[in-house]
């Protein structure tokens, strides 16, 4: 039978605050084990939490960017369970009255856009980290440095219908979070974590099937892969007439498989109740408006503006606005006087490829916007050809030298002298009499071969338009 996947994602974002959610301990990454802890965040007897204002501000900022309703009244609750990384044996979270509700996020897949609903985004504290003995024997160690760091859990509606949509959702979400600078979104350091809920239903059926929750997804690609695996696993079960059980499964990136995690699941009953040590959070419109005023232009709006203002195709605008630094780079090039579509072409093809190949970012790139403009000017003036420009570009990327200097030093100035080109053409024609005959005999593609030979003889420096023109005349 054909099945349709129903996918919802839960993304945990570490909010970029200086201190933890309920105490004044630093949140800096990479410190020595248990060097950033205090009586409050390791849950010593008698301690009490006090809420970090900045964490609330960043939550509101995220909520506004995801078009959520900011709850005028929200509160904190305790989620009770035993685990060594959870010092109080309860996690302070928000159960029935989260800060943000009912948002949405637009994604693009295959050139089509789709709106994914955001159920809620709530504040909670992170747990510590368990370090296992590598030999697989002996004790485990607990490091509470991460314990108490503020997280915003963003829960989507089960609106996604393919692994690609899930991937696009994560990309779009990350773009927004980076735009508004609420998190560094570093997946390796765990500041962005994702769990996926997935179920299958026969195509055309309204009712959802039983879902599995997949954890331990450490990259967006793995989310996609895990969903594919899970779709396959569940489809086989359904086809065989088996029932899918509702459970938590772990994704193993090495084998590409998911496995049941029943150990942790056993009789989970979190016994949520209102956290008596914290008072309610009341966010009035003055507060949320003051946060709204700090919001930058968001990816969707920027993309729309690029299309309108710079007359770029949707695709170009989409790619250019995935990250703020790239969008800024592009806009700076335009400000320096470059033609938008021409810059876009260079950025989308040459620049992004080079950055990708060399594992570099736009921030560290040696080619500055001004240099791209200078290079484009050289092309416009006819000093270099488009082809030569690629050589110049490569040189600029590596050395960071100005395009003019590179052209000078490497002798890359285009040959635009009729006499000189004429001379080269004469030589090529006499060396390739066969092709000349072919052309005259009606084989039109012989012309292209001859142009190629002329360019080669000029070591690429001949002005292509002039070559075309002169060669055409000579072969008439």
């Amino acid at each position, binding site marked *: 039978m054909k099945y349709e996947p129903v996918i919802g994602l839960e993304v945990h974002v570490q909010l970029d605050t200086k201190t933890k959610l309920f105490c004044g301990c630093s949140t800096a990454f990479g410190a020595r084990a248990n060097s950033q802890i205090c009586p409050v965040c390791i849950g010593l007897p008698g301690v009490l939490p006090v809420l970090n204002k900045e964490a609330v501000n960043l939550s509101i900022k995220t909520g506004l960017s995801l078009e959520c309703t900011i709850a005028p009244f929200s509160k904190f609750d*305790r989620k009770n369970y035993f685990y060594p990384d959870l010092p109080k044996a309860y996690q302070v979270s928000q159960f029935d009255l989260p800060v943000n509700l009912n948002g949405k996020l637009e994604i693009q897949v295959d050139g089509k856009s789709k709106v994914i609903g955001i159920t809620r985004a709530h504040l909670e504290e992170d747990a510590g980290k368990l370090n296992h003995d590598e030999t697989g024997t002996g004790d485990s160690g607990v490091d509470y440095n991460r314990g108490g760091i503020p997280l915003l859990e963003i829960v989507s509606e089960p609106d996604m219908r393919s692994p690609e949509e899930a991937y696009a959702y994560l990309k779009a979400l990350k773009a927004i979070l980076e735009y508004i600078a609420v998190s560094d979104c570093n997946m390796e350091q765990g500041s962005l974590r994702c769990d996926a809920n997935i179920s299958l239903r026969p195509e055309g059926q309204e009712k959802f099937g039983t879902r599995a929750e997949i954890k331990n997804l450490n990259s967006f690609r793995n989310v996609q892969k895990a969903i594919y695996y899970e779709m396959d696993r569940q489809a086989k079960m359904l086809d065989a007439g088996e029932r899918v059980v509702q459970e938590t499964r772990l994704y193993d990136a090495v084998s590409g498989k998911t496995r049941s995690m029943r150990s942790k699941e056993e009789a989970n009953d979190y016994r949520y109740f209102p956290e008596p040590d914290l008072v309610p959070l009341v966010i009035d419109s003055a507060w949320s408006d003051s946060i709204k005023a700090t919001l930058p232009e968001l990816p969707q709006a920027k993309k729309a503006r690029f299309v309108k203002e710079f007359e770029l195709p949707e695709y170009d605008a989409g790619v250019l606005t995935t990250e703020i630094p790239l969008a800024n780079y592009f806009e700076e090039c335009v400000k320096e006087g470059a033609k938008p579509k021409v810059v876009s072409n260079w950025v989308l093809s040459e620049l992004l490829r080079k950055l990708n190949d060399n594992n570099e970012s736009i921030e560290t790139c040696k080619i500055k916007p001004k240099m791209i403009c200078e290079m484009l000017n050289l092309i416009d003036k006819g000093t270099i050809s488009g082809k030569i420009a690629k050589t110049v570009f490569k040189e600029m990327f590596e050395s960071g030298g100005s395009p003019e200097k590179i052209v000078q030093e490497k002798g890359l100035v285009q040959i635009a002298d009729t006499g000189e080109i004429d001379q080269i053409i004469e030589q090529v024609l006499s060396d390739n009499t066969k092709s000349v005959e072919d052309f005259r005999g009606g084989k039109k593609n012989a012309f292209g071969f001859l142009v190629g030979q002329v360019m080669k003889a000029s070591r690429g420096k001949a002005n292509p338009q002039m070559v075309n023109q002169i060669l055409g005349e000579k072969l008439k």
Partner: protein
Amino acid sequence: MSAFDLQKKLVSGDLKVTEAANLFLSQHEQVDSKVNAFVELEKEKVLKQAQALDELSAEQRQSKKLFGVPVAIKDNICVEGTETNCASKILKGFTAPYDATVISKLKEAGAILYGRTNMDEFAMGSSTETSSIKKTANPWDLERIPGGSSGGAAASVASGQVPLSIGSDTGGSIRQPAALCGVVGFKPTYGRVSRYGLIAFASSLDQIGPFARDVKDAALLLDVLAGADPKDSTCSEEAVPNYLEAIDKDLSGLTAGIPEEYFIEGIDPEVEAKVKEAIAQLEKQGVKIEKVSLPHTKYAVSTYYIVATAEASSNLARYDGVRYGIRSAEAKNLNDLYFQTRTQGFGDEVKRRIMLGTYVLSAGYYDAYYLKALKVRTLMKQDFDNAFKKVDFIVTPTSPTPAFKMGEKVDNPLSMYLSDIFTISANLAGLPGVSIPCGLTQENLPVGLQLIGKPFGEETLLQVGHQFQQATDHHKQSPLL
């Protein structure tokens, strides 16, 4: 001598702090082997503090409201560098690495931190019998319980070992032992005193408060303890009035409410008689007496045992043997660590309450028990709101009976729970309450008069209590030890 007079004498230098401390220590040596109020009292620690205080200049002494006055600390309030056990095996060996806010305030006020007093394990009990350390006796009758959970705190003051002590009150744990030991015990409005450093039993009900021989001393100590704390989100910013000034006003113009629901079947006739005498006394002093109704009083114990145990089940989950306290030696894996540590570390009453609290929060029962209790809590609060439209304070007995015999109620948890019936409502509604001695029964057992006030109405309660004591001498009675 009252703490108030003692402080004056010590500030003036008429009496050295060391001398005073030695006097209290010798009383301790004489009586505590019988009373067992203290779980720890180190002579050297006390004298070291006293010596340091003796070295202060006259000017420095002036500003210290409790200069040189010993204050005993209930074993659930953290003192840096001192063992704090909550009278539980599970916290054996736990040394608090920080001071509770009230401890910082006591230090600042020049008080001597004078040993730790016994209590029911994790403050769960009404007789101090659930302590894993020792049993405390009632100084008036050593066969009887001192009340609880702050039994040691009440007994330490009643037996003259210390002029002041601090305890905590979740459902009557200050007022009930104060009544049973014949001293003054004051539970402030929820949020009046910081809970930071008080080892939590039920966070939405717990409050720290003073014990003293008379109301004026209680006012002196409350004045030091009260006030906002940036470390406790539930602590109020409401300004703290000058309590010692408030107590001198006479009682004319005040109206007391007498709730009929507190004079019910089951109340000891002698207790009822003493409380009624006290009410007559207040009337004589110019207080207008009016009947009020608190119709939901009979639901207080049920509501309390849901709310308090639910919060406790969560608050006590952290005792898992990972970061502090005892850890089961036999634990081979993580599950053993949890089950064995907690099973060996907690006593029966604590286990019973953790069980009850876990049950009322568990899936399928939350709405029927916990949510229901929170709604009844609202109704109880409304009862008081309505009553306080007509009256300035409410007068009731503190406990339905005088001190009972040790062992009498240990096997019947429910009958033990019902002994808190008159004190619990003030915690559920967050109101201030004080128990004041109002006479002795024929068996020479103290009876307590409870005054319940409006939110942040501490001044009125202290004023009424002080004026009552100016006209009577119940508080001057002492047990023969």
